[in-house]
């Protein structure tokens, strides 16, 4: 049988398939990477919004501790918020679920599941992912994990409440919600593992003719490194999750030392376990995980910058090497989250050193992006604004990682709002902005219509201002020594008194941020029907293969099997008639 179909065959095949598929097969249990990508997109955006909503509730309590929540306070249930006043138990549930949902159900599925799924096969000129059935399964396993996570709010005692880090022994003695959390995590990890196997095989095996590794778009590289991180870092957390489940359900004490007295009662377990073991296994995943959050974002930013500067990305090779190095190093820095667990000089020196080293590739990547701007002809459309704003925002987040990465300075800052500020700068105005850029950038390919630039700009400027309004004061509070995860925002503490006034400010900024998401949501849904139609398949005049498909791409993606002749970002090539020279366009005949 033929494994590379001819062009005519392909089109015919695609049309043929399309007719046969029932609605369910086409839109629900679809095996088409694009439909799955869209399923991921919608689901993860909803989770993102949900995670944000949880946070807006928390911000009420932080700004106005002990006052009844207006409008919806009464709907939260007597067990959570009697008289509309949030209980500490409920605050802790919200915090743990906000972190978990944002990271595992929001950003990762959006960055990898949605963008990776939709864009990677297009960019490498493949008809689909290598294993379409597996792809479908990843999505549905993710979906089940997500539903389990949400359903846990309705368990007695509510959802998990031991932080997204689920440190034992607190998590082992916690309410049933923690069991649901663990089961949900096992689903999510399984989904990620299936997905990452699929991604790596696709990127290695299904590259179009001529598309060598050095010609891969940076976004594909970023996804490739990300997939390896997921593949190798997640299993230890799965193992840890199984052990914690055993601790909770089978009475083992993997994470419980002997001699615990909880609530005045000696705990009846065999003991002999180690709480630190959980932390090691958790951070063995969770540190690489933060690069899973940032790498695809950097990939998107790279695409958007190259496209809208109209020139090649500067230092493509160093970008690729830096990403690989970043991925590699991310496996040996995890214990910088654990400096204060009793670490001696030798090991802490090791982890401080690796942490400083890992900041260098990030600097290289950012520097390459900055230098790419030199000599450019910058188009300030919405996606470019988001991509550009990513740079200083990630810069702030990354730079504040430095004092955290040095154990002596971390002593004062550990578990304060400084940490919260640090990572929100990288994930919220960092990653989320990059993902917004991606939405605006690829929207025309998916729908055949553009999103409104005006609404987009309102969305951008509003979000930029509000994000900084939320997260900048966190550094002030953190330096003052205010602990994180405080139900009353630190009200009782003397050292917090000078910075308490920021709580209200930050909350107002967070609610305003929500208001500025309205133009986005309107834009997103309305443009499906009302957006300006694209004039051709390549509205941004881009060079990569994702723009060489029909719009929207049919099942099987390409009308003709693409072949690649050059690197990914050949913009403004001297002597070329247009300012972009697509990867799949043959060299013009000489003479």
């Amino acid at each position, binding site marked *: *049988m*033929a*494994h*590379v*179909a001819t062009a005519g*065959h*392909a089109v015919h*095949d*695609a049309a043929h398939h399309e007719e046969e598929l029932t609605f369910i097969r086409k839109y629900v249990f679809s095996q088409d990477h694009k439909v799955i990508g869209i399923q991921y997109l919608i689901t993860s955006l909803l989770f993102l919004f949900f995670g944000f909503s949880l946070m807006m509730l928390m911000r009420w309590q932080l700004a106005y501790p002990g006052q009844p929540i207006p409008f919806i306070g009464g709907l939260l249930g007597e067990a959570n918020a009697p008289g509309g006043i949030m209980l500490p138990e409920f605050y802790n549930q919200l915090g743990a679920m906000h972190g978990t949902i944002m990271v595992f159900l929001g950003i990762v599925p959006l960055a990898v599941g949605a963008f990776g799924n939709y864009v990677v096969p297009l960019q490498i000129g*493949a*008809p*689909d992912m*290598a*294993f*379409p059935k597996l792809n479908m399964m990843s999505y549905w396993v993710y979906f089940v994990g997500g539903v389990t996570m949400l359903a846990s709010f309705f368990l007695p005692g509510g959802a998990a409440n031991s932080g997204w880090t689920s440190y034992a022994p607190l998590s082992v003695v916690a309410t049933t919600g923690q069991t649901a959390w663990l089961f949900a995590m096992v689903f999510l990890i399984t989904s990620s*593992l299936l997905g*990452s*196997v*699929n991604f*790596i*095989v696709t990127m*290695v*095996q*299904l590259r179009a003719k001529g598309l060598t590794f050095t010609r891969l778009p940076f976004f594909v590289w970023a996804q490739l490194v990300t997939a390896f991180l997921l*593949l*190798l*870092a*997640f*299993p*230890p957390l*799965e*193992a*840890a999750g*199984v*052990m914690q489940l*055993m601790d909770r359900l*089978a*009475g*083992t*004490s*993997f994470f419980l030392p002997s001699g615990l007295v909880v609530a005045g009662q000696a705990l009846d*377990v*065999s003991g*002999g*376990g*180690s709480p630190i*073991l959980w932390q090691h*296994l958790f951070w*063995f995943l969770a540190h690489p995980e933060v690069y899973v959050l940032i790498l695809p974002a950097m990939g998107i930013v790279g695409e958007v910058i190259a496209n809208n500067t109209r020139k090649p990305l500067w230092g493509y090779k160093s970008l690729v090497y830096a990403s690989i190095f970043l991925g590699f190093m991310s496996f040996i820095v995890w214990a910088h989250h654990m400096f204060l667990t009793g670490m001696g000089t030798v090991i802490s020196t090791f982890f401080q050193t690796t942490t400083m080293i890992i900041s260098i590739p990030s600097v290289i990547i950012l520097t390459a992006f900055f230098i790419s701007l030199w000599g450019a002809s910058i188009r300030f459309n919405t996606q470019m604004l988001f991509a550009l704003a990513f740079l200083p925002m990630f810069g702030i987040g990354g730079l504040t990682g430095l004092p955290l990465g040095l154990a002596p300075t971390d002593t004062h800052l550990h578990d304060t709002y400084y940490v919260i500020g640090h990572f929100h700068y990288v994930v919220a105005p960092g990653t989320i902005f990059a993902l917004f850029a991606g939405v605006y950038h690829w929207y025309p390919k998916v729908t055949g219509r553009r999103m409104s630039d005006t609404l987009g700009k309102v969305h951008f400027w509003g979000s930029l201002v509000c994000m900084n309004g939320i997260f900048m004061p966190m550094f002030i509070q953190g330096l003052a020594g205010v602990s994180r995860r405080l139900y009353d925002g630190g009200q009782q503490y003397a050292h917090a008194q000078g910075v308490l006034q920021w709580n209200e400010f930050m909350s107002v900024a967070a609610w305003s941020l929500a208001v500025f998401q309205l133009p986005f949501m309107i834009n997103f849904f309305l443009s499906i029907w009302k957006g300006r139609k694209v004039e051709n398949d390549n509205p941004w005049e881009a060079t990569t293969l994702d723009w060489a498909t029909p719009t929207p791409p049919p099942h*099987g*993606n*390409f009308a003709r*099997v693409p072949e690649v002749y050059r690197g990914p970002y050949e913009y403004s090539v001297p002597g070329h008639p247009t300012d972009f020279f697509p990867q799949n366009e043959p060299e013009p005949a000489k003479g």
Partner: protein
Amino acid sequence: MQIPYTVHPRPDTGLFNAKLGVWLFLASEVMLFGALFSSYVLLREGALTWPHGYEILNIPLATLNTVVLISSSITMVMAWASLKLNDFAKYKRYIGSTVLLGFGFLIIKSFEYGAKFSHGIGPGDSTFLAIYFTLTGLHGLHVIGGMIVNGYLWGPGSKMWQSDPERLTNRIEVAGLYWHFVDLVWIFLFPVLYLL
């Protein structure tokens, strides 16, 4: 347009998709069991006392189980070789025995578990038992998974021999990789839990 390299290897990598896929999956399995082994060492290191496996566990049964599992590995690889030699009937016999041997493994394992539970010994009684039950339980789940796949390839899945023999051969190779890995894990589990 069809997905390329599902049957024949891609020239520059020399691999067909599923093979790379299963190796990657096994890489993640290495990290999964690695984390448990590492936890085992860590907990043992920190424990005041640690029993010798042979004081608590049944070595003859486990040895028998090792033999069973290794045998199932050889039948698995013979199943693949039979397909390569175009001998479908032999293939059916070998893959069938692989499934049966897997079954045998589980039955012996259940005797082991049963003996423990009937003496009221469970995972909650000591850290050693906790790790024993977790590791062997997880390994047992892997055996069950492999049996389902192999059972499918013995039964309905083997029909592919008529339509696409090369693809079936690939599938057996890939299923074999997984099955040998399960065997490999046991090769380490056995001394670590029972003999040390």
